[in-house]
């Protein structure tokens, strides 16, 4: 097995699985074009082929050299220490990956599940909004309970969760909680500086983008978030 480790095999398998999936999906648009004999699928399939070759090349590199870096000086210069940090934090274990993956599923659950349930119940828009609020509350609870155990997984999830909630709850209502959440996950726990910095960042952003540049940010769809967002915009503009 040369210098191959389990991680290298998993990495290679992921790449080749991705190639297979993309190749399989390319049949969905494998149609001819009258003025272009290669059709719509030739270009992506060439990329997929090159990707598979590069993945195999990478696997051979690992087999021969293990984790050795290319002799290219610029490649070496690009090393920002992120690999080393991951290694030192023991964030390379299967358990850590599974825990992070579970946390990362939270935003996608919010984006999909309320619509599925509403569709199954044949519910109207009011019920859908209530459903969204209930599911959001449950998911926030799950997120908070898990965040302490995997802080890095939580910091990866929080912005995605914020983005998933943005359409319904609006930028104006969510931003203060998001600022506090990020600060907490970066190990800041002193309440007074947290509140002061939150007010400063929120105030500056509102002033620059809402008052000066008139950038329309999402106000939300659900009461009372929509009312709060609209009120902030009315006051500032």
């Amino acid at each position: 097995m040369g210098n191959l480790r389990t991680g290298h095999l998993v990495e290679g398998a992921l790449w080749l699985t991705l190639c297979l999936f993309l190749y399989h999906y390319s049949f969905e648009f494998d149609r001819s074009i009258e003025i272009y004999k290669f059709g719509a699928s030739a270009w992506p399939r060439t990329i997929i082929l090159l990707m598979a070759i590069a993945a195999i090349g990478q696997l051979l590199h690992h087999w021969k050299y293990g984790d050795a870096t290319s002799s290219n000086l610029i490649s070496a210069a690009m090393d920002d220490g992120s690999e080393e940090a991951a290694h030192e934090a023991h964030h390379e274990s299967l358990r850590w990956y599974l825990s992070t993956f579970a946390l990362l599923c939270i935003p996608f659950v919010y984006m999909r599940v309320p619509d599925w349930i509403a569709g199954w119940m044949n519910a109207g828009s009011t019920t859908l909004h209530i459903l969204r609020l209930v599911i959001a509350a449950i998911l926030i609870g799950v997120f908070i309970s898990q965040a302490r155990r995997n802080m890095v997984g939580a910091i990866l999830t929080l912005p995605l969760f914020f983005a998933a909630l943005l359409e319904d709850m609006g930028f104006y209502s969510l931003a203060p909680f998001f600022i506090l959440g990020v600060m907490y996950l970066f190990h800041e726990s002193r309440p007074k500086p947290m509140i002061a910095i939150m007010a400063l960042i929120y105030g500056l952003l509102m002033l620059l983008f809402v008052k000066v540049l008139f950038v329309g940010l999402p106000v939300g769809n659900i009461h009372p978030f929509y009312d709060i967002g609209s009120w902030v915009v009315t006051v500032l503009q």
Partner: protein
Amino acid sequence: MDAFSNFLTGTITLFSDPLGIAIFIGGVLGGMLFGAIPGVSMLTLAAILLPFTAHLSAEHGIMLFSVIYCTGVYGGAITAILFNIPGAPENAPTAFDGYPMTQKGQAGKAVGAAVMCSAIGGTVSCIIMMLATAAIADWAISAFGPPEIFALVFFGLAVAASVGAKTFWKGWLSILIGLMVAVVGLDPVGGIARYDFEMPYLLAGIHFIPTILGFFAVSEIFVQAEKKATGAFVAPKIGVEFPSLKELLAHKVAVVRSIFIGFFCGILPGIGATLAAFMGYNEAVRWSKKPEEFGKGKLEGVISSETANNAATGAAMIPLLALGLPGGALTAMMVGVFQMHDMEPGPLVFINSADLVWVVFAAMFFANLSIIFIGFLETKTIINLLRIPFQFLAPMILLLATVGAYAVRGLTIDVVVMFLAGVIGFFLRRSGYSVAGIVLGLILGKIGEQTFAQAMQMLHFEWSGFFHRPIALGLLVIGFATLAGSIYGAFFKTKPPPPTSETPA
């Protein structure tokens, strides 16, 4: 003399119009500021301003974007040096040595060198551009068809894949991810939907601004979060010490070399400043007597990269104006400004709107000069950003990125895409892949496929057609030679791993 009188006319037109002056000053300050604030870039500012240019004249709109381009490329160097967050892909090589210099307490010296060299590179590029525009435009129009542009894109990708990632293979995989992301949406010839997964959002393709923000700014926050969690996070040391004239003169060869590299890379459509910066840096390493010092905080690395990328800004306007081909993300937005005013960039602009061209050139010249004066003043203020603890800076960066991603199209899904790109970028970075490679693949992927299709139609689907076009053939040969050299290096020149206690599988 024609060029000089045209330049004078452009200067008089620019400075005799109060609105023009206000837009010029706003563009200079805005480009520098947005380039320098971590998490946002000149692209964010340009994206926010793009809808508003409909209310300006075409002359003012294009001038504003070109000024933002010049000063924003410089501004992006500040974040690359201070936070390891390149404001744009063209600032990525600046971070290679700039950030280690910051960690060694030499941030002031690195930023000072970036100010001087950005101004020198950009100003000289503008002068050459003004003197040679007509001849270069004529040459480019006659010599560069779709086969040449495709060959150029291939050459650019072959070079870019060889740098930036932990190994050559990871470099190529990074580029290929970018190319694959660029495939999503409608195909450029038949308009057939590809990899849309029946989601209407994906039909329009994945926008490059949220992707760039995600891969560069957001993933950097995540990496810093992990370092903080492990105690590996090191707050950069602060120091304000500009390089002396003697130090700069000691690097005069690097400056001149980078101006030439930057100008010739910038003039090549579709590649521009990014390749210029990488090649400027690469050549500095190759010509150096102490190449092992690069990547560890060598001033020459910053000088070479920053001179080259700013030297490309002036030249990048030529393919845009002469051929209608954007050299990068910001010049692509300029195409949007033209279209909003019912104009198409191309050879006719030089004939029908010569005034516009010369006002833009004059504005770019003065914008580059102003980097020296405003840049020095601004830098002293910006360096103080380092005093802000990262736990307070991180939410600010993430929210600015959110506004930037949302402002592009007013879609919350763009914000989701940005943060998703950040998560993917985080995992790829810690596995040794190159986020700069992904972004380059994304930007050049669309141009590459489109020009390949046009080239094949033009050559009646005969591959041998490339052999009858010397420029295309030359670029393809150099591209393949680069590739072959990198593959050879990957298999035979890699250093064997140090002995570890881990048991192989």
